[in-house]
C-alpha cells in the first residue's frame, strides 16, 4: 500500500507538485494499479534472468570525428529564454 506521504515523496522525486485533492486521487489509483500487479507474485522468477533487450543488438561504434550538427541558432529556436547563444536559466549561484 502506498499512503499519501509516499505519493508526495514520489511527486517530489519526479519534480512535480500536486494539489491536495490530486494526492488523494493518485493515491487511490496507484493502489489499484499496484494491487493488480500483485498477480506477478504467483510467478517464480528466481531462476529467470532479467532481459533488458529482447532483440540481440551489437554495440555501435563510430570514429570520434567532428560532424556537421544542428546550428546554434536553430537549436535555440524553441528555447523559452535564449541569450548570447545559450539557454538562460534563473540564477543558481549565490554571491
Amino acid at each position, binding site marked *: 500500500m502506498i499512503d499519501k506521504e509516499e505519493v508526495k515523496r514520489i511527486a517530489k522525486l519526479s519534480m512535480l507538485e500536486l494539489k491536495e485533492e490530486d494526492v488523494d486521487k493518485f493515491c487511490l*489509483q496507484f493502489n489499484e*494499479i499496484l494491487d493488480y500487479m500483485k498477480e*506477478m507474485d504467483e510467478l517464480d522468477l528466481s531462476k*529467470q534472468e*532479467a*532481459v533488458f533487450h529482447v532483440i540481440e543488438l551489437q554495440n555501435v561504434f563510430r570514429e570520434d570525428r567532428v560532424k556537421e550538427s544542428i546550428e546554434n541558432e536553430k537549436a535555440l529556436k524553441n528555447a*523559452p529564454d535564449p541569450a548570447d547563444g545559450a539557454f538562460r536559466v534563473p540564477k543558481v549561484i549565490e554571491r
Partner: protein
Amino acid sequence: MLYKKTLHELIELLDKGEIEAKDIYESVLNRIKEKDNEINAYVSVFDDFEENKESGILKNIPVAIKDNIHIEGKKTTCSSKILSNFTAIFDATVIKKLKKAGATFIGKTNLDEFAMGSSTETSYFGTTKNPWDTTRIPGGSSGGSAAAVASGEAIAALGSDTGGSIRQPASLCGVVGFKPTYGRVSRFGLVAFASSLDQIGPITRDVKDAAILMNIICGHDENDSTSANVDVPDFTEFLDKSVKGMKIGFYDKTLEDCNEDVQKAMDETVKILKNLGCEIESVDLPNAKYAVSDYYIIAPAEASSNLARYDGVKYGFRAEDYEDLKDMYIKTRSEGFGDEVKRRIMLGTYVLSSGYYDAYYLKAQKLRGLIKQDFDKAFEKFDCIISPTTPTEAFRIGEKVNNPLQMYLSDIFTIPANLTAIPAVSIPNGLSKNGLPLGLQIMANAFREDLIFKLASAFEKEFNLWDRLPLN
C-alpha cells in the same frame, strides 16, 4: 471524391495521368474542412500544398503524420501543453524517407498526450471522436491517425505503437494498423515515450497500402543505434499469395476476456482461415496474461526517464511564476503535463526508486524474458499467432477516463508484441451488434513481417470493411 481512394489506387491514377496530386490534396483538405470540427482528428492541418520535387512512388500524395513525429518547420506538440509551442528543427528519419519517396503532408494528427493512453482523451487538444459513432473513442494513442484514415480525412497515416497505439485504434476504427518488428523502423525524430517498446508504423485502409508504406519507412539508420541492420524485402511481393498449409496458432485464452461479439467474430475468422487451407491450432502463451502488469512497470519506468528532459529550459512551455531554478522545473512540469502523464512519470519513478526496484522493475524485466520465451516456443511450431486486437468494440467517451486500470486493461492483447519486439498487424474482422468495427491481430516472429502480410492479404480478400467505412 479522391479522398475515398486508397494509396495504391491513387498511384495508379497518377501514373495514367488522369489526375494531379494537387487534386488529391484539395479533396482531402475539403474533407477535413467538412468533417474535422466533428471528429477532431488533427492538431494541425497544412493549408498549402507544398510540391515535392522528388520523383518517388508516392508522387506527391499527401500523408498524415501523428503529432509526435518531427517534420522540420512544423509544430510537434505530442498533444501536450508542454510542447504546444514547439516547432521541429529537423525531419524524423521516416519523414526524410517519405519525402524521398515523393510524399507530401496534409497535417499532424491528434494523440493521447505523449502517446500515453488508449482513447485520445488525454490529449491537451481534446478527444478525437470515432467516425463510426462520435459518442465513442477512436482508440489510442494514434486515434487521430486512425480516425482520419477511416473518415477520409487522410488517405494514409503514420502512427506509433508502444503498447498497441497503432493496432488498437486501427481495430476500433475499422482500418489496418501495422506495428513492425522493434528496430525495423528508425525511431530518430519520434518523440520518445518508452524507448525499448516504441515503434513507428502505418495506418491505412487496406493491407496493400500498409505494405507500400512499410517499403518506404523500414531500414537501418545510423541515427538510431537500435535500428536493425537487416535487409528489407519488398513487402508487396507477399500479397495475393496462397496461404494453404500455413500454421496458425490461435491464442484463444484471450476469448475469456472478450465480449460475445468479439468471440463470434473470431469464430468466423477461424472458419475463413480454415477454408483458405490454414492449419489452425490453439496455442498457449502461459505468461502473456501478465503482460499488462509487466508493461505498466517497464513503460512508465522508461517514460519517467525520457520525460525528465521537459524542464522549461531548452524548449517548450515554461511556467511564468517561480522562485528559483528548481521551482521553475517543478512549476513548468506541474502546469505543462496532464494527469495521465504525471501518473506514469510517478509510477515509473516509484518502480525505479530504491527499495522498490527489485520488487517491480527487476521483476518486470525477468517476466519480459519469460513472455519472450513463450513466443519463441510458439514460433517454433507456428508461422503466425492470431487473437482479437481488443476485448471489446470502441467504448464510450468518458467511460474509462477516470479509471486508469480499466483503461490499461484495454491493451491486454496488443502489449505482448511490444514486450517481445515482434511485428503485429490489426485488420478489420467484423462488426459488433452496434455496428462497430472489431479487429483481428496477426503476430509473427521478429523480422517475419512477410508472413503477416501473406496472411493479412489473404484474409482481407475474404473479409473487409471497404464498403462500410464512414467515408460519406
